[in-house]
């Protein structure tokens, strides 16, 4: 509970700071110019550093977790992706993991009822995660129209697709709804499921609440208190062209949105939000299960003391003779 309260307080504090920044001298400039640049720098350097930190470490053993039949005898049907036999298949395995969250799809619920073990289907976590991540991607791509000129060719059709329900004006974008629903679900299960509540940390709540704050402030700018899109676009384009212009009297919502997004960017490389690295780098997923066919090299294969045959024979010679078992020693004497 403490973690949740701290996380909520942090997000509320940030939002309030954003909302009131316009009233402080230099506040607008800080949030619209200084912070975005700093955030972008931290994000890029941070991610590069973290990925390098993981990728630079050695992989001494080939330890894939196999989730299907191995390749052994030619007439046995294998599971070529869940138990990849070569690098290409392992790469496909990783791609499927990254794109459709293969492992979460396996999920089931196991519990004990009246002393019996009960297994049941559980796909909601998979669905919510998939919806969240894909919606975030679409939303990110849609935002390219603010920072790139000309607008990339795929953005208008994406917008159209996203708004295909044609409800209200401006048209309701499905991803806006989905992202909020998914976030609320993920937050809700953390609070309702006692096992998750027991384990959840500040960072677990903070990440969800921060994303929720970003989504809500963004949605409000579109539907509730519309901002001047043209002005926002001019401001953003100037920012990306490195000729920043501090907007005159920006809406408080925009400041909140910018502050929260910048916080996310700064926080991301140092937080659990770097989890995507795990999908690509995890030695249990990205290696082929062919360790008996192709030797894996351990770069630091350090020597260890062993009990060699000669030493073993010397200590056990009497017993070997007693049992009439052959000795190498005897060979040498003969």
């Amino acid at each position, binding site marked *: 509970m403490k973690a949740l309260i701290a996380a909520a307080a942090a997000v509320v504090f940030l939002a309030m700071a954003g909302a009131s920044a316009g009233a402080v001298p230099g506040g607008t400039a800080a949030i619209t110019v200084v912070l975005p640049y700093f955030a972008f720098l931290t994000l890029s350097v941070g991610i590069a550093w973290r990925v390098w*930190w*993981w990728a630079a*470490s*050695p*992989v001494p*053993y080939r*330890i894939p*977790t*196999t*989730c*299907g*039949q*191995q390749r*052994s*005898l030619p007439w*046995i049907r294998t599971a070529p992706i869940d*138990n990849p036999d070569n690098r290409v298949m392992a790469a496909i395995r990783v791609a499927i993991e990254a794109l459709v969250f293969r*492992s*979460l799809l*396996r999920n*089931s619920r*196991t*519990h*004990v009822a009246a*002393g019996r*073990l009960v*297994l049941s289907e559980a796909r909601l976590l998979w669905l919510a995660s998939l919806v969240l991540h894909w919606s975030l991607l679409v939303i990110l791509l849609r935002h390219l129209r603010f920072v790139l000129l000309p607008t990339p060719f795929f953005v208008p059709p994406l917008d159209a697709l996203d708004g295909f329900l044609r409800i209200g004006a401006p048209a309701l974008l499905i991803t806006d709804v989905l992202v909020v629903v998914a976030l609320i679900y993920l937050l809700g*299960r953390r609070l309702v499921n006692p*096992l*998750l509540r*027991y*384990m959840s*940390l*500040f*960072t677990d709540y903070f990440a969800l609440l921060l994303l929720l704050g970003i989504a809500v402030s963004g949605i409000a700018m579109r539907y509730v208190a519309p901002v001047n899109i043209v002005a926002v676009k001019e401001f953003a384009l100037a920012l990306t062209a490195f000729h920043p212009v501090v907007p005159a009297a920006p809406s408080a919502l925009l400041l909140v949105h910018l502050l929260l997004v910048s916080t996310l960017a700064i926080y991301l490389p140092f937080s*659990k939000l770097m*989890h995507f690295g*795990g999908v690509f*780098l*995890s*030695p*249990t*997923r990205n290696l082929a*299960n062919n*360790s*008996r*066919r192709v*030797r894996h090299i351990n770069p630091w294969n*350090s020597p*260890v*003391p*062993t*009990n*060699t045959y000669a030493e*073993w024979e010397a200590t056990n010679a009497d*017993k*070997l003779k007693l*049992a*009439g*078992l052959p000795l190498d020693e005897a060979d040498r004497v003969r």
Partner: protein
Amino acid sequence: MRPTVSDKPVIDIELNAPKGDWRDAHVELRRGTFSNASLPKDLIALGLPNPRKWQPTDLDWQLPADWKGILLRGMQERLAKYRSFRLFMDVCVRCGACADKCHFYLGSGDPKNMPFARAELIRSVYRRYFTLSGRLFGSLAGARELTEDVVKEWFYYFYQCTECRRCSIYCPFGIDTAEITMIVRELLSLIGVSTHWVTEPAANCYRVGNHLGIAPHAFKDALDFARDELRELTGLDVEIPISRKGAEILFVMPSADYFATPHYYTLLGYMMLFHEIGLDFTVSAYASEGGNFGLFHSNDLMKRLNAKIYEEAKRLGVKWILGGECGHMWRVLHQYMDTMNGPADFLEVPVSPLTGTRFGNAASTKMVHICEFTADLLYHEKIKLDPSRNDEYVVTYHDSCNPARAMGLLEEPRYVLKRTCNHFHEMPAKTIREFTFCCGSGAGLGNTENLEMRLRGGFPRAEAVRHVREAHGVNLLACICAIDKATLPTLMDYWVSGVQVAGVHELLGNALVMKGAKERTTNLRGEPLAKEAANA
């Protein structure tokens, strides 16, 4: 030893909402739920640090003065050596997908047995000493001080993980708590904290050649005994060559196969098969252990014990190696041996002398699993079977964790089973193959003092067996693992009585039609065959 009825703990399984804060490291060591400490003699024999007389229930564990420094430097070293460790310390999102997947959580209801909770026990220490946020924000960032209580907690919970990898298949990032357990056990071994059930077999294996410490002459006696028994059973002289130079194949099995029941019947099965097909093979008195309890202690110890297999293959001048039925042994052979002690360039790519099948999947290690070998024989119709000799059995198959999740050896044993018996039924889909539930006694936990926790950990597996017992009258649980054979009988007795445990090659031995053999009236256990029983 199998416990008698009066030893039976009373176990109620209930999963309640966790109470308290997981950061509180204090554990209550309850009898029946932990293993005894290593004895000094075994640590000395293996040259391991801090040998002393102690028990986990002692207040003072007699840790070395600089225990904290040793552990932190050990962590630092392993963060540099293992990408798995470095990554798994960072990327968990606590989504909880793994939470209810661990048999120890399901059987004990102890929230610290949830895989992600188990991992947090060290992750919190990692945060405190190796990350900026942990140093700055402490417990708010999920960081914990490394204290003696934490050491005791690690000992308790990382010896309540059977390194089964079930959690890993559900994790979106492939986080393998078994890998974390292996590393924490390795860390604990640096300050002399380990268990008797792991280090004694390891010391025996190192000095004498096998876990049980069976000296060469006793090893020979055991095999002679099997030869006599097979003569009685089949009327044939089934020779078992020991340390014979120039044989084509070195056969390596877990030592329990020649010294424990029901493993022993599997040994009979292998030997009948080798005799029938006229295999040019030898076993070894030096490499008389395929199992490797080093795996449950540290990677170095695993490597030290494993080294003798290649050394012996080279000395005997065999062409390739065949391995018997054992789960953790195959984890080592499949994923570690070649990397650790290879290259096996003095051996040849395994080719079945009967079918000519080239085992390309073992082209580098040169070691083939007996189920692969036998399935190939059966596919090519090289042996004759009479499955009706197994008619008294209604069989189901337990996938051992390691062959399932660290190899993918799923179909081969099933193929052999379906040819050797007429009545076979699978357990529910979510409890077999890659989803298999552990026996609850692997990774060095299969001792008597830990019995309650074993029975709890084996509960999910037992429940799945009960399901097929009720639905199809299953009375035999087949498996290909020495630890399973040692511990599943106890588990079955407790939760689902009336189910026996057998190796796949025991059933093969029952069904095998041997040239020149006398009519069989009993199975390998000496029990009358179903048709004999019907006639009587």
